[in-house]
């Protein structure tokens, strides 16, 4: 019983990091994808560089930069803040790329049709392109969210007491076979937690598909 309780103690932080980081990423991904698609070349290049760096540098490096690198006497992020913000900006990079793929897969005719109907840029984007893109990318976003849930375990390396951190401290105190049980339980819990996300995504996908036909 005790190993389960140990892991459950970390569950709220695991969920908090995942949900808040996802929200940050979903919002910050929007200006990033607009940057990726703009006609202003320097902005486009900078956005591309930002997305590539966010995705190309390991998460643990980002977390260490935020937690240890940005630490000055005047300004310092707590471990939890660094984990949430770090995962949030990384998610923005990944989600911007997913958004971009979705927008790109909307047939060109849709852009042309809205132009022909005299619907101006932002409205055409919001009311015609974005809803169709959302339908295409919803499964990818769900997959990313599940990945993010698992990646939140890396917050344990900067001493955020989420599930893996709890498992780790228990394992250190109990050098027996039972001592590693919390790792296995935590691992299974990640799998269990990802099931409802996957199910919700499938239902959402079916709904959105119906809506179009």
């Amino acid at each position: 019983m005790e190993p389960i309780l140990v892991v459950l103690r970390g569950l709220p932080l695991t969920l908090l990091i995942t949900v808040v980081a996802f929200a940050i990423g979903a919002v910050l991904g929007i200006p990033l994808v607009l940057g990726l698609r703009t006609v202003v070349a320097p902005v486009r290049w900078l956005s591309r560089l930002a997305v590539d760096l966010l995705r190309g540098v390991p998460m643990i490096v980002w977390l260490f930069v935020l937690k240890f690198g940005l630490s000055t006497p005047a300004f310092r992020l707590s471990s939890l803040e660094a984990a949430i913000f770090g995962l949030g900006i990384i998610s923005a990079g990944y989600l911007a790329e997913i958004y971009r793929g979705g927008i790109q897969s909307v047939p060109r005719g849709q852009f042309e049709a809205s132009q022909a109907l005299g619907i101006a840029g932002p409205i055409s984007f919001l009311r015609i392109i974005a809803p169709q893109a959302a339908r295409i990318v919803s499964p990818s976003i769900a997959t990313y969210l599940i990945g993010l849930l698992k990646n939140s375990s890396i917050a344990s390396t900067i001493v955020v007491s989420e599930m893996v951190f709890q498992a780790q401290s228990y394992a250190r105190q109990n050098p027996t076979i039972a001592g590693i049980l919390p790792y296995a339980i935590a691992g299974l819990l990640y799998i269990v937690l990802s099931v409802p996300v996957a199910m919700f995504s499938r239902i959402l996908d079916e709904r959105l598909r119906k809506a179009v036909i």
Partner: protein
Amino acid sequence: MTTPLLTSWGQYLPPLLSGLVQSVWLAVAAIVIGLPLAFLFCTMVMSENRLIGALGLVIVEIGRGMPALVILYLVYYGLPRFGISLANVAAAIIALAWNYSCYCSEIIRGGIQSVPRGQIEAGNALGLDSRVTFLRVIVPQGLRSAIPGLLGQSILVFQDTSLAYTIAVPELMKQAYSLGGENYQYLRVFVLTGLVYAAVTLPATWITVWMERRLGKSY
């Protein structure tokens, strides 16, 4: 007192590059072990034998469903408690290879399943037996569309080698942490470390995108 940025980066670079060599080595080992495993798992999952199929599914879903860090800890701290002692490098390679192979198994399966059914029927119509059709007609085409995904996964496993820092494998991240502990220039050290990782992953990503376009075009 403060050294110019580039001077200090010049000092940090040699130990970081020796760490990078270790990281690349870990990734290559995980890929070399993981790819054959991926084919094995994929064959199991697609097998018509229900028992083998279920076993394959369990292996793959656990390998993909658990965070890489948890797998790493389970291998490194777990196995010795059952009397199997492992060097940290070996533990890192086993954990990364398993995680990698499970993702790749699904990518390969997706590739094979994306081959149009007509190809099987064409094989039958030409009088090829089903084994030959599968191995010589379906698999080559399926692998072709799986290549960009496999490359992407290989870039991710290279990034995941940074997790081996947590079990004291002297790879890039560990070197960075030791350097930071010596001079307290954490920001400079970790930013340079990020750039070293990016120097590998960004060109690799561009190659992947380029291959994806090329493979998509022909036929």
